[in-house]
């Protein structure tokens, strides 16, 4: 049931996305806007996992580059998501490098937690777990695991595409995604039990 909500982000509309990209490459401005609307949510989610509150700025930078280099791109809808994710990732890593030189303010962590809530919840069992906390847990993963999970789940890339974005072997990315998900499942599961046990018991009596 939980998997029925949003199984793999993006893959459902890859055909339309590919067509829009092809038209945009012919110079169709409206088609470019269509492609943007298809890709931006997943891209922004990936960037949120990487750079938190700065995701919007980094995404804007990435889209400037995407718009400039669109003529170079070759591939279908799924390929376009991989290509744009690669560009966004490079911009995010540049951003993180700049941050390392000039340490970011401690307020950022709070900013991340203050993000607006999710547009929908999918399962009563998961309702109690705050999505902000889930984001915090994702960002608490080792970088390789967090990125593998985000590219697979949020951007909706398949294994080889995620591996290409990360510049790693598909096997390594698969392992990282598996470990990241297991770790998140353990953390979220343990917390949900701790948080909700009294309430659940109270309801049942």
């Amino acid at each position: 049931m939980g998997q029925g909500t949003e199984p793999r982000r993006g893959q459902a509309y890859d055909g339309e996305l590919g067509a829009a990209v092809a038209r945009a490459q012919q110079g169709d401005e409206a088609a470019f806007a269509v492609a943007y609307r298809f890709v931006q949510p997943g891209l922004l989610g990936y960037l949120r996992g990487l750079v938190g509150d700065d995701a919007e700025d980094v995404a804007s930078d990435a889209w400037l580059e995407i718009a400039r280099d669109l003529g170079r791109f070759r591939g279908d809808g799924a390929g376009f998501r991989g290509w744009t994710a690669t560009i966004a990732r490079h911009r995010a890593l540049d951003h993180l490098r700049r941050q390392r030189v000039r340490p970011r303010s401690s307020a950022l962590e709070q900013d991340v937690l203050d993000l607006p809530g999710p547009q929908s919840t999918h399962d009563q069992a998961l309702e109690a777990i705050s999505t902000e906390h889930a984001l915090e847990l994702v960002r608490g993963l080792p970088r390789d695991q967090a990125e593998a999970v985000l590219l697979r789940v949020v951007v909706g890339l398949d294994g080889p595409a995620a591996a290409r974005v990360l510049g790693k072997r598909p096997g390594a990315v698969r392992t990282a995604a598996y470990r990241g998900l297991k770790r998140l499942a353990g953390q979220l599961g343990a917390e949900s039990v701790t948080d909700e046990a009294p309430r659940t018991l109270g309801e049942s009596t």
Partner: protein
Amino acid sequence: MGERQSDGGLSGRGSRHALLDADVEALIVASLIRDGVDAEAEQRAVTAFRAARDAGALRTRTRRRDDWRARERRHLGRSLKTTLSVLLASLTLGGVAVAAIGAAGSPEEGTNNAPERKSAPSSAPRDPSEQPSRDGHSPTPGTGPSPDRPSPAQDTEAHCRAYDQVGRRGKAMEATSWQRLVAAAGGERYVTAYCAEQLDEPERGSGGSGNGGSAKGDGTPAARSGTGNASDNGSDKGSNSGSDKSRSESKRSQPNGRHQ
């Protein structure tokens, strides 16, 4: 947990301690993705696209990192091509190696039989019938001795040399060669004399000291060579008939000699 599952109703479904991957994924998606895009950000991107398009950026060259076309298939095609070329290369190298072995083996044999053998192509053993046409001057086999093939007289000579070297240590010579030599000499007793004569003829100019030494080993060089010289006609006849025979036999026995 079992109690909670039965009692908890909606909230109890599934394992809470280790959430399903699908649940975790859904949670991640819910926490990171917001549907709908910021119109202002979209407008900025479209503006950038328009500027790039008007500047001719859509006709730029595709770099390797921009090519996201079905990658597995291209990779498979390349690997198939690579496999085939590696296979072809190994076959070629193997052929060269075999040819090199054949070429290295032939001159050794050529010194025994005839110096002309050295010039034989390395592929000669595979198809002897091809040899006459290769030299270009004698297109049909059998019209005359080709340079590649030793004349019967040279064949006999070679057998005599071999007899000189190994004959005294028993019948170490190849049986066929020995029989042929006996036939050419007109009998086993006359082999030494016959050979002395045969070997003497071509090397008459150069002194023939080697022949003398070899003849001495037999003990009666003078008598035998004398009889050989005396019966010139007979020995000629014998050598002719013997050479005819050896010519036909040498064709047959050539492959055997090669493998020795």
